């Protein structure tokens, strides 16, 4: 069991990040922290893909280099996913700015109180 975990340390880290990210999204009362949690969650997935492409002693997938090659596809996929993640973060922060301008608070509990009084 321990051996299994040690030889797959990247995957363990990936799923720890997924768990931490989910926890922060649920437990944090501050909207900015929730967005940070979302980013941590996504980072876990990025690590999962990149770890899967790693090959001991592998070289870059250039034909003049010697085999075995590291698969370049997961890197490309994750590059796309990172761009999507940045866009999401930007939109989320934009909404948080509007919420702050409208209600003057960034925390979930205070927002609930303000809105109940509407």
């Amino acid at each position, binding site marked *: 069991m321990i051996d299994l975990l040690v030889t797959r340390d990247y995957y363990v880290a990936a799923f720890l990040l*997924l768990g931490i990210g*989910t926890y922060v*999204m649920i437990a944090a009362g501050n*909207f900015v922290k*929730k*967005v940070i949690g*979302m980013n941590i*969650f*996504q980072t876990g*997935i990025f690590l*999962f*893909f990149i770890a*899967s492409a790693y090959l001991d002693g592998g070289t870059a997938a250039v034909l003049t280099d010697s085999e075995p090659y590291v*698969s370049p*596809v*997961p890197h490309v*996929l994750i590059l*796309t*996913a990172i761009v*999507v993640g940045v*866009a*999401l973060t930007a*939109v*989320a922060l*934009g*909404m*948080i700015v*509007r*919420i702050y301008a*409208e*209600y003057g608070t960034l925390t979930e509990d205070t*927002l609930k109180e303000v*809105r109940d009084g509407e």
Partner: protein
Amino acid sequence: MSDLAALAVALPIVGSLVALVAGVARSESGWSVAVVACAAQLAVAVQLAVTAFTDGTIEYVVGGFEAPFGIELAVDGLSATMLVLIAVVSLGVLAYSRRAGPRSNPFYAVYMLLVTGLTGMSVTADLFNMYVFLEITGLAAYALVASGDRGRSAVAALKYLLVGTVGASLFLLGIGYAYIDTGTLNMDDLAAKLAGADPTLVLAAFAFIVVGLFIKVAVFPLHTWQPDAYAGSPDSVSAYISALVSTVAAYALLRIVYTVFGAAFLANHELANAILVGGATVSIVVGSLLAVSQSEVKRMLAYSSVAQFGLVVAAISIGNVTALTGAAVHLVGHAIMKGGLFLTAGLVGTETGARRVEEFDGLAQRSPLGAGAFAALSVAMVGIPPTVGFAGKWYIAVGAAEAGSWALLAVIVGSTLLTLAYFVRLVERMFFREPSADLEPAAEAVADGGETAGVSFGMRATVVAAVVAAVVLGFAVFGYGDQLQPTIEVLLS
């Protein structure tokens, strides 16, 4: 001719950019650009649908990289149906939003981006490409929900964004599982290679993808973003999102379950089937019960969607030709009916200020068209023949009976009674009660950013068109079911 599939996705992107740039030269020009792009897309979609139904699946290789290495677009009967539905609803909502909706150019730019995402999800035959389009759809939808003026829209949009991102990320994680084992992302290629893969891994990939899409479809208990998002956004946006976003996500679920994992996988793995059946049953029952207990009309319609998508997921879990035809018919029917209901609710709200259930008292006197359309669409939603709502439920129920899933059949029939429960309450208030006093008409419409509040011809025409479509499609749908049969048989084989 052969590039039409790519054109269907490219047209709205170009429309989006042009709308944004045109805004620099002249404000409020986005609407015309969007109409032109949507009309062109409708022409392309119809042409694709005709070809797909007569000659079979259209395949298009993007950039000359042959599958399985490159991205492939494929249009079969099912995707063609979604394409035409997206193009028609986009045009209809545009007709409505001319007067009602947000009018800025950025709004129409994002609107066209949403059309792009939905179209892309419908035509792609590549899993990662589908993830990208799912995120484009999501991002555009979050931004549109936030386009309402009130703080409520921003809060609803942020909640939608956080929950929706988790859904899309789980979907990506599921793709990761499948990709690492097979080394391919093309759907047909994956189907062939997953058949020989480790069953535990395939099951894990299935679970991640299905739960991720459940969030996007808004299946109970993963629906929490949906009522806030629908109720918090402007009327034209809630109509558009309720009609298409969950619908296309449900299409993606159907496509992935049958094209990638296959009917045999579902038959061999009780757990996989149990996820679908469980989600469907809970969604139908709890969604309907929550709808009955709502006091705001748009929230009630939102919970009704939770229940109706439960029906579609039930059809996917049954998985015979009749049930899957029913799923396709109900997706189209639900889009027309629910989109129409949201537009009617918006029309009534603009005309009389009534937005809560108790404010609908005596609506027939104050807004005869609104009350009539709302009642007609409610009847269709309950599933009374000859409407399209009846046809969809009929196919799904017959499919359940053919498969011998009697428990599911009972839930499906019971759902009709529950649907009746929440709609009859409104119909009774609209036609058999005296209007209550003190409502200020159109207060809401002014707050939503229009200087000339009021109901336009376009708004009325769209609502009437939705009612007519809900009835006419009820007749047309059986012929369509026969047309769709070859596609479904390919899907199930």
